[in-house]
């Protein structure tokens, strides 16, 4: 899988590139700002075209949300290229901004998550394949926000755990492994969650994630 990396810190960028190439990814390019990143995904030969771009949200010149803007541009212009946005602060606002067009191939993670090497490589892989990777912190925040207005108190603790993992883009099997449950039990929980939240069961996992996210952010 081909990856492009964008971050204004050389040190971090190099480290990230090494981490990914050690994991078997092909790092096809590095960018220090949004313009360089857009050049990396634009007019390039097919064998240099990244499947996924890992982008820092804050980059020069204004150090606000250049990375996010670039990520959205990529998603609009190259829907087949996944984008994984990294940030030193989790802001649901930004996560939702990125995911608002409703298609897969997007991720939003706290920058610290790179230290969890396997988990991080897994997330890059998922986003590159058109799936989702949402930071658990985002989900926790959304749940908190939702509870303040209309408590998700109806859900059991176990159902809430399942909901959180589901919203991060995990499959039933992965959820089962994480919570030491059989896949069948997870399926039952998912059905219960969907019923309690008044959602229609979604045909595939990607749409399932989006449905859950859509529910969580509606206030």
């Amino acid at each position, binding site marked *: 899988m081909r990856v492009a990396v964008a971050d204004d*810190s050389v040190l971090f960028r190099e480290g990230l590139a090494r981490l990914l190439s050690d994991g078997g990814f092909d790092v096809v390019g590095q960018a220090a700002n949004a313009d360089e990143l857009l050049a990396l995904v634009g007019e390039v030969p097919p064998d240099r075209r990244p499947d996924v771009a890992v982008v820092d949200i804050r980059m020069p010149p204004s150090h606000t949300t250049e990375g996010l803007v670039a990520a959205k541009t990529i998603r609009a212009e190259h829907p087949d290229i996944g984008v994984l946005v990294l940030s030193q602060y989790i802001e649901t606002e930004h996560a939702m901004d990125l995911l608002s067009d409703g298609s897969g191939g997007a991720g939003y993670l706290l920058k610290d998550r790179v230290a969890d090497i396997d988990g991080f490589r897994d997330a890059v892989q998922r986003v590159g394949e058109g799936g989702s990777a949402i930071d658990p912190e985002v989900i926790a925040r959304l749940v908190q926000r939702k509870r*303040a207005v209309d408590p998700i108190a109806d859900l059991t603790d176990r159902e809430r755990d399942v909901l959180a993992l589901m919203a991060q883009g995990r499959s039933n099997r992965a959820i089962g492994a994480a919570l030491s449950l059989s896949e069948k039990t997870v399926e039952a929980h998912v059905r219960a969650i969907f019923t309690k939240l008044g959602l229609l069961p979604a045909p595939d996992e990607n749409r399932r994630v989006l449905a859950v996210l859509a529910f969580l952010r509606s206030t």
Partner: protein
Amino acid sequence: MTGGTRWVALAAFVLTMLLVVATAVLFTVDGAIGSDPVSNLLALFAIACYGVVGALIAWRLPRSACGWLLLLIGLGLVVTTAADAATTIALREGRTGFASWALWLNSWLLVATVWPGIVVYLLVFPTGALPSRRWRSFVIAIGVLAAVGAGAHMVATWTDEPVLANPLAIAALASVADAAFILVSFAFAVALIAAVVSVVLRFRRASQLDRQALRWLAVVAVLAGALLVVAIGAGVLGLHRIGDPAGALFLLSVILGLPLSAAVALLKRRLSGIEVVANRAIVYAAVVAAITVIYAVVVGGVGAAVGGGDRPDVLAAVAATVLAALAFQPVRRRAQVLADRVVYGERASPYELVATFTERLDDATLQELLPRMATLVAEGTGADRVRVWLRAGDVLRAVAGFPPDLPPAPSGRLQGGELPILDDKAFAVRHGRDLLGAITVGMPPQEPMTPTTERLLLDLTNQAALVLRNVALLEELQRSRQRLVTSQDEARRQLERDLHDGAQQRLVTLSMDLRMAREQALASGDAELTSRLDAAEQELARSLAELRELARGIHPAILTQNGLGAALRSLAERSTVLVELRSAPEARYSPEVEATAYFVVSEALANVAKHARASRAWVEVRDGDGRLSIEVTDDGVGGADVHAGSGLMGLTDRVEAVGGRIGVRSDPGTGTSVFAEIPCASR
């Protein structure tokens, strides 16, 4: 306005007055004055008031309906009264034909003029125009009502009249006319109530000046309304002993109340020099009266003492003339004082104004100070317009004025360190040799500035210097506080960015390196190294989390990135108590305003988490009237001690530096509520 309309006003006035005099002459005929001479004479006097006040207002403000309506009511009343007296006299002399016509005129004139006049007058006072276009149909309805009522009276059959018969009676319409009386009376009662309600409603919305005018009318309206209710109620119950005097008092209060309240209210508004006319009239009347008394006493007294009887006493006349000449100036001065008091009421004497000027400004807040100063100057000098100007560098800005709704004046530029030419007469305000500002005074055309007023204003500007100097200093202080907050915010933003791009970035990279080293150690089978690297990495992760919270506390990046609304949502999500964000503005504001509002909410929520033992909190931030109003409420134990070094009090300075206010309400058992207001302009 055109001379034509003015002559109509004058003609109506002269006609009213002639009729008043004629009626008074009729009253001298035995029995014509009726069974209640006192109230009839009082009514005649009131009618004269309508003529005088109505004509004055119509002459000065021909566009205003007030004067014309008062004239109409006055004419209607005087013709009715005259017709009444004429009926009595004609009856006694056996001229029943004339008596019938006089009574006929009497019967419908009130309904045709006075009743609609009063209702419409209540609607247009004091502006002289209807409250809104929607009332137009109401006025048309009143006109129709008056016409129907008058028509019914014109053709009615007089059943309770023993001697006289209506010369125009139509017997076939008798029952219709009876029904029309009842209907019209009832409708007028309802219309009157509606008009009184409209007075009350307008009073609540009126400007300061209109409110002053309406207050007088409201007193009359409420009094008359109460009397009417008593009169009608007693009438229905058959209690004539109460009903009749109440009815008479109602009529009297309406009759006297309308012109008197109009006179007082509109004189208070200093309408176009009416007060000058009144002032002069009082002075000359008093002087003439005094001189007449002197002549009467001296000539009469001396004549009686000398005993000359018929012979004109030249000596007494000369003595009286000398005395009158000597008394003229003192009498005139006294009369002037009396007239000033009657006409201008609250206008302070010049000495009083200078003496109490600073004292009267004592309890004003900074915002009120200059407007109050303008008001005091206007009250003291009788000026139409007063503006207070403040100098900042080379620019002179009008910062306050009287009346409060004075249109804004363009700024002026100093000419070689001196005042520029301004529209009104300007008085420089100096402290030492420093030019601090100016007071400009525009006098009404009928009352040009006198040397006394000018001296008074020069004295006042000396006192104003201190006030203006304080205001300038306070404004400078406020600006410097704001600059401090702005630069502090900028420093915090920079610090957060340094942390983000420096330490945080390095530590994240370091944690990645550590993790890779741990993988290598694990692969090499060095268990001890692996676990040490594990521990180090976990420690680093905690440091990173702490550093992140620290950086966010210094300045939340989302505030700069996405504005107040997004930052408050983020804050609410991260709070340890459940926070419902009920409302947050999506507009962008200046960085100081956004940061101040954010820190107020964040500090309040931190207090909720620390002290309130609350399960929930509610945050509401709204943008209205150029201010952000912020409220943070919780359902905790309350009773928070606001002064006990809470971080909130530390925010007071910050909020005040951007011109805002902050307060806390925390009663035991009812939770705590923090509220703040910050002036803002969205970008």
